[in-house]
């Protein structure tokens, strides 16, 4: 009785700041789109090149989603039923690609799978031709590298959520692998897999940096890349706007689909618990599980190892441009993180206090927003008044904030909800208001989650290679852009050194903020 008597509408802080934050984000995303559309001088038809970009975008996203999820099922199953030293570390590492700068991963993948990479060298020893990484399969390999861990975490979560009693019951009934699959695993997968695939599909639709580096050419251009090319090389705003609209329809549809079949985010903790199971005891099951885990670990760790190995020689002689780019990146990441907290904190509180609509709107906009569409829109809006290049850095920070927002909300909202459920009544009874509630209750109680969200945002922003490519003049670059430019100039040693620096910076800033949030924080 005492608990069902919990009143629903206790609001110790105002909801309007959250509403304003959501409106601001909506205005930015939709306003920039409108600006692009208005500026587009009509009549830009959907040409053959555009059709092929659309086709490529869909094909690579479908393949990336299917392959990631297909591989993740056996890996997650192996991780769910085996305990071995290093299991925790491996599961933690599965979270790393999320904050790994794309350009760093690309350099790692090139060092492993590239023409003169480790795999090609090994093939050369037995007289086989080197592998080719540019084009569709390169783009898909990179996407699988990023999304296999995400899919594995999501599916592993599904496995962990099968109640232990059911496994006990199945073991007691002497259920063989077939029966176990039919009774427990298949029903779970049927629930979890569509959601995981939809999320990955949505993520891969707006792929820009991967397509920029590993794709390109008429046969491997995504819509995002096509927008960039229309804008950057041809300054064809009409075409950029038309492509932007197509991209937006696509991503909104995919985001709606992903939310419809949505599920946990794989960011959560508790995945390092091994369920007690009595199946999979045979030597064959043991061998196949071991093989899947080893393959997945190799696929994820070799490129990272390659970044380290290849990067060290270049580190000593990094050009000054790399250091100044690193400084620019740090400034952008700081601004972006500050903006994120300014928006996400009131917004998450409002959502937790029952404004669920706000959460949906922010989630869809965040997932559907294309950095390049926002960038193009802002460019069009400011172009008549100021030199857009002056605004390159703040615009990048704002866009990075919007991109990180859905993830930050997923981290903050559940905790905010919990803290309010536990403390709102007492705060209201004590007549505690606004600022005091934030200072004395919400901020201290959510510190760990705020640190996590801030770390994630800072790392994402540091590693982002997107809108900055549109805006930057040759004088200014962020660190990822500088790495890309060094690659383009075939200065591979410097590029690899800079990539290592970027890698260390992103992981370091994430670690610092995440740790700082959890340091001495009470649960």
């Amino acid at each position: 009785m005492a608990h069902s008597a919990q009143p629903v509408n206790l609001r110790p802080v105002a909801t309007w700041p959250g509403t304003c934050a959501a409106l601001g984000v909506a205005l930015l995303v939709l306003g920039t789109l409108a600006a692009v559309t208005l500026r587009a001088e009509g009549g830009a038809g959907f040409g053959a090149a555009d059709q092929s970009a659309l086709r490529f975008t869909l094909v690579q996203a479908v393949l990336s989603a299917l392959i990631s999820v297909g591989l993740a099922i056996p890996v997650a199953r192996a991780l769910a039923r085996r305990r071995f030293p290093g299991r925790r570390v491996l599961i933690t590492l599965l979270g790393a690609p999320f904050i790994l700068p794309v350009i760093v991963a690309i350099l790692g993948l090139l060092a492993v799978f590239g023409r003169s990479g480790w795999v090609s060298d090994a093939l050369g020893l037995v007289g086989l031709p080197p592998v080719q990484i540019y084009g569709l399969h390169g783009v898909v390999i990179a996407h699988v590298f990023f999304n296999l861990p995400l899919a594995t975490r999501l599916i592993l979560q599904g496995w962990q959520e099968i109640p232990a009693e059911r496994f006990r019951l199945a073991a007691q009934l002497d259920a063989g692998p077939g029966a176990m699959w039919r009774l427990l695993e298949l029903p779970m997968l049927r629930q979890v897999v569509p959601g995981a695939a939809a999320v990955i599909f949505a993520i891969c639709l707006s792929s820009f940096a991967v397509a920029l580096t590993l794709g390109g050419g008429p046969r491997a251009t995504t819509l995002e890349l096509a927008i960039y090319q229309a804008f950057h090389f041809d300054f064809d705003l009409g075409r950029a706007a038309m492509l932007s609209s197509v991209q937006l329809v696509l991503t909104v549809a995919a985001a709606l689909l992903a939310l419809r079949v949505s599920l946990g985010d794989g960011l959560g903790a508790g995945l390092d618990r091994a369920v007690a199971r009595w199946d999979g005891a045979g030597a064959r099951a043991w061998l196949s599980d071991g093989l899947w885990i080893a393959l997945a670990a190799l696929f994820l760790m070799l490129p990272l190892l390659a970044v380290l190995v290849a990067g060290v020689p270049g580190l000593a002689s990094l050009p000054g441009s790399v250091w100044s780019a690193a400084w620019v990146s740090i400034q952008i990441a700081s601004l972006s993180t500050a903006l994120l907290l300014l928006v996400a904190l009131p917004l998450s509180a409002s959502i937790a206090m029952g404004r669920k609509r706000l959460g949906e709107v922010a989630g869809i906009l965040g997932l559907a927003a294309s950095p390049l569409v926002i960038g193009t829109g802002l460019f069009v809006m400011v172009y008549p008044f100021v030199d857009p290049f002056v605004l390159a850095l703040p615009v990048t920070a704002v866009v990075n904030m919007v991109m990180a927002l859905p993830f930050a909300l997923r981290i903050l909202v559940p905790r905010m909800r919990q803290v309010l459920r536990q403390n709102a009544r007492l705060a209201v009874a004590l007549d505690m208001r606004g600022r005091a509630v934030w200072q004395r209750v919400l901020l201290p109680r959510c510190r760990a989650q705020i640190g996590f969200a801030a770390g994630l945002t800072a790392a994402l922003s540091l590693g982002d290679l997107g809108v900055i490519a549109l805006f930057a003049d040759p004088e200014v670059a962020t660190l990822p852009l500088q790495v890309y430019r060094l690659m383009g100039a075939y200065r591979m040693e410097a590029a690899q050194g800079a990539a290592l620096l970027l890698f260390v910076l992103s992981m370091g800033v994430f670690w610092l903020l995440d740790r700082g949030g959890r340091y001495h924080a009470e649960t």
Partner: protein
Amino acid sequence: MLKLEGADIRKGTFRLEADLEIAGGARVAVIGPSGAGKSTLLEAVAGFQPLAAGRILWQGRDLAPLGPGKRPVAMLFQDGNLFPHLSVRQNVGLGVDANRRLTATERAQVDASIARVGLQGLEDRKPAELSGGQQSRAALARVLVQGRELLLLDEPFAALGPALKAEMLDLVRDITTESDLTMLMVSHDPQDARRIADQVVLVAEGTARPPEPTVQLLDNPPAALRSYLGDN
């Protein structure tokens, strides 16, 4: 005097009616079967639960326009009475004013009330570093500095053992006497009522009945109370 005038509380299909008066300075136990609406009655007085009809008056003043933090009410809940990340001193200090820094006089007042409930020396501890009984004492210290005239207890001592609970009830009795508080206390245990309450409000069958003297009611329970108390 606390007066409930044709008060009608609704929650979904649940409904509770109350038409009763409680004298100032009285200590009243609210008893009845679970689910009858004992907590709901207290929440209505505290302002967490709106009335569908009727009025609740304190000293002749209608409480309806006042939010929970503005009513002359200090309430202790079953759990969550302390913020876990704040020290005892900070938690008690919120009772003086939750929205600003305290003056030196007010801080001295906080320390005095912490000493009054027997927690001197533990001012800087966090709730997790206190025993269950000490946590209850800290919450009562805050009631003292809040200076509200009505004290509502929604089974805050339910998780304590019998000896400790008796100790807390004695402390509550002393505090209410010293500060001249009017108290309403939800309880499952008729012994609690006998220990500190002069009067009992029986909540059963959708109605909160007017208070009756404790001993009289418990010794000669009406049918609704008898089925709750059982044969013994």
